[in-house]
Structures are given as C-alpha cells and as structure tokens.
C-alpha cells in the first residue's frame, strides 16, 4: 500500500475535510514523483522513493488528525463557557424562584427575575453573536463557534419570549392576548420559508405548517399551556436551525458535519436548560441544571476528541444522558405516583432521544452523503 492510501486509511476526519488533506498530499506526491521520473528514475522506483521521502504515513496521519480534530484545553473551555455562565445565572436566581407562588412577593420577584434575565440575555446575546459573526466573516470555524452561535441565538429567542411575558403582564388580568405569540411563530415561519425559498416543496410545507400553527393557536389559545404543544411549536424554527447548521458548518470548506451536529445538539439541549420559568426551583435544578452540566461535559469531550467518529459518539452519549438523566431526576422527585410516572417519563425520554438522534446526527450525515458530488473539486 502506498503512502497516500495508508494516510487515507488512518485519517479519521469528516469526508470533506479528509478529501482536502489527501488532495494536498497527493499534489505533493505527484510533483515529487514527477520530478524524480523527469530526472531519469524508473516510475516504480520513483514511487517508492517518493513514499520514503514523505515519511511514516501513520505518523503523518496521526499528527494531521490531532491538529484537525483535537482542540486545546483553552478552546475546549471557551466552547463550554456560555453554558457555565447559564448555570451561574440559574443559581443566582434560585432564591427568587423559591418565593412562595401565593405570596404577593412572588409577583414582584417574578417581575424582577424577568427584568434581570432580560438585561442578561440581551448582553449575553450581543457578546456571543458579535464574537461568532467576527469568526464567520473571517471564514474560520473554531470549535467554540458552534456553541457561541447557538447560545447567542437561544438568548435572542429567550429575549423575545421574556419580552412577550413582560408585555402580557402589562395587559388587563384574565385577558388572553395571543398577538405576541402569533408574531413569534410568524417571524420564525417567514425566516424558515425564506431560507428554503429555492425549494418549492419545502417552501410550501413550511408555509403550510406556519399557517396551521397560527390557526391552532388562534382557535385554542389554551393549547400553548399544554406540554405537547411546545415540541410542535419547535418544529417551526427547526428547518431554519437545520439550514443554518448545514450551511454554516457542514457545507463550508472549513467546517464539517460533526460541527453541524454539535450546533444542533447545543441548540436543542440549550433550549431545555434556559432558566425562563421561575417558581419551580427544585424542578429548575433537575431539568435545567442537569442538561446544562451534560452539555458542558459533552462540549469539553467533543472538543478534546481526536477523531471524527469519537466526536459523534460523544454527541450520541450526550443525547442519551440528557434524555434519560433529566427524566429520571423528575421521577425521583415524585415518589408518590412512581409507577405511573416511570411509564410516562420513560416514554417521553425515549421519544426525545430518538428525535434528537435523528435530527442531530442522522440528518447532517444524510445531507453530507447527498451533497458529496456537489462539493467543490478540492473537497470531494
């Protein structure tokens, strides 16, 4: 086996990135071999001499892989940083969230909580998005870009949500005002449709879904308070988030599929862990802090993994952990109706896990395969 085949076999990188590395080495290999042949050397001998001069393929592959896959601890910590601050924000607000819901102090605590969170969200979103946009403009794709971009977007969503909550509280009591929520759904729907404007099929599906979501909400405003409506609501921005992940990371010459998967993982887990609901401090600990801790560990392990496949295994483990551990903690909090809740929460955990595995890992992989022939020549 020659030098190039050996490096290709040992190099565990996403296909596009791997193709670029091999192509560069191949260009060197051919130029060197051509020069030796031109100097009068026999072609077979020239091939052997070229391989000898290029060095040990296993060593070259290992060193290239370490550079492309493994981030430094500094970069890894930078990737986990936004989630660490999220945990700190939650912990700071636990005393507020512990106020008794029936007491008059509770409403003022909620107002103060939302106002503080709003300021924090705006500041945080500004910092994270500015840093991300700077990297995007410079065509760079460091590992922390995925988490910063996701948290910036999530903070922006949280800001819109909190603004809606504050507007609601200014309205007369018992009046159900659905306008802010309708605007919220519409903005995401239009953005998703604009992203897929070139595909008539997807444009119509997304348009139809947005109209359906709006109609459901207008006819049954109470639906929004039921547990199952939220996952459906998330389907409106879902194509937009997927398009962003694929375009910014998977299809970019300096990005890759694993980065797109990290972006999607952080988006869905990050949405869960945002501390937007006051008054449930123990559930906040169980449902919000645990996913945040899982995502921190996942981001660190992802950044430090040395191969592409290990990165996907890390994300897979993160998905299983966040789905099972979150729900298991809830079960342990409600011992009275243990058996009933085991069945209910385990079903939810399994559905959530399957959805995330499909959406976070399988869809980017399928797109990667589908797009491989549309890539520029040098990344095929």
């Amino acid at each position, binding site marked *: 086996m020659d*030098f190039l085949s050996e*490096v290709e076999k040992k190099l565990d990188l996403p296909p596009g990135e791997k193709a*670029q*590395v091999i*192509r*560069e*080495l191949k*260009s*060197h290999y*051919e*130029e*060197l071999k051509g020069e030796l042949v031109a100097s009068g050397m026999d072609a077979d001998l020239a091939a052997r001499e070229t391989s000898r*001069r*290029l*060095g*040990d*393929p296993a*060593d*070259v592959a290992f*060193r*290239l892989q*370490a*550079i*492309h896959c493994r981030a430094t601890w500094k970069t890894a910590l930078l990737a986990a940083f936004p989630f660490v601050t999220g945990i700190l924000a939650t912990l700071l607000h636990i005393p507020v969230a512990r106020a008794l819901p029936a007491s008059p102090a509770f409403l003022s605590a909620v107002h103060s909580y939302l106002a503080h969170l709003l300021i924090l969200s705006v500041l945080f979103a500004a910092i994270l998005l500015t840093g991300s946009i700077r990297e995007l403009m410079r065509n*760079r794709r460091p590992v922390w870009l995925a988490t910063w971009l996701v948290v910036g977007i999530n903070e922006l969503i949280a800001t819109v949500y909190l603004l809606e909550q504050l507007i609601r509280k200014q309205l007369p009591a018992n009046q159900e005002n659905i306008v802010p929520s309708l605007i919220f759904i519409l903005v995401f729907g239009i953005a998703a449709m604009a992203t897929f404007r070139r595909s008539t099929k997807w444009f119509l599906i997304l348009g139809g879904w947005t109209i359906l979501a709006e109609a459901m909400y207008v006819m049954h405003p109470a639906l929004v308070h039921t547990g199952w409506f939220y996952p459906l609501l998330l389907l409106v921005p879902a194509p937009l988030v997927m398009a962003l992940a694929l375009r910014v990371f998977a299809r970019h010459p300096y990005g890759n599929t694993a980065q797109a998967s990290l972006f999607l993982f952080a988006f869905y887990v990050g949405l869960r862990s945002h501390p937007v609901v006051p008054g449930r401090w123990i559930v906040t600990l169980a449902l919000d802090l645990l996913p945040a801790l899982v995502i921190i560990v996942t981001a660190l392990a992802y950044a430090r993994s040395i191969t592409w496949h290990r990165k996907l295994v890390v994300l897979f483990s993160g998905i299983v952990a966040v789905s099972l551990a979150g729900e298991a903690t809830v079960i342990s909090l409600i011992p009275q109706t243990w058996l009933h809740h085991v069945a209910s929460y385990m079903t939810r955990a399994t559905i959530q896990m399957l959805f995330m595995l499909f959406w976070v890992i399988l869809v980017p992989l399928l797109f990667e395969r589908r797009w491989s022939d549309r890539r520029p*020549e*040098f990344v095929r």
Partner: protein
Amino acid sequence: MSAPTELVKGNAVVLILSVLAREAMHGYRIARELDQLSEGYFAMGEGTLYPHLHQLEKDGLIEGYWENVSGGRDRKSYRITEKGTHELARRQAELREFQKNVNRVLSVAPEAG
C-alpha cells in the same frame, strides 16, 4: 550533515514563516526551499511539513488557498498573514538573542576534539 530531528521540529514554525515571508508558495516548494537554503541541513520527512502548515493555518499565522495549475490540477498554496509576520519578527528576535548568548558561552570553552 542534517540537523537533529527535535531541533528541526522545535524551529519548524520560524523556518516555514521565514520562507513564506518572501512569497506565497505551496507545500512542495516550501520543502524544496528549506532544503536548498540550508543546503540539506534542515531535511525533514516531507509529509511532516503538512501538520506544521495546518497548525500554522489554524493559528492564523498563515493563510491557505486553492489555485489551479497547468494540467487541470489544484494545489493548496500558503501566504503569511499579518499576525504571522509579527510572530516571525518576535521569534527572529528571540532566536538571535539565544544565538548570541550561546555563542558567548561557547566562546569561553576551549575547542573540544
């Protein structure tokens, strides 16, 4: 005579940046330039040049770009960035200082062998 591998590894950054500071070039030519300028002293496994190039690119000290060459082939060339130029100046100063002090110490020792 060629330099010890560890010494080449330790100074690969400054060597590559020095070559690229003159003009942009691709990996194969960088290897040739290093070989010719040092009259074979800095010979290294040419494949091991690429991990260094990719690390420098990741650190923003050099910038890679693909170009078409005759025969319909593509090849990746590299140019030094502003950050790379500053880093080169810093390392050059560091090396000169080191060299000066090594020479000072060596000069007091009697010629061995």
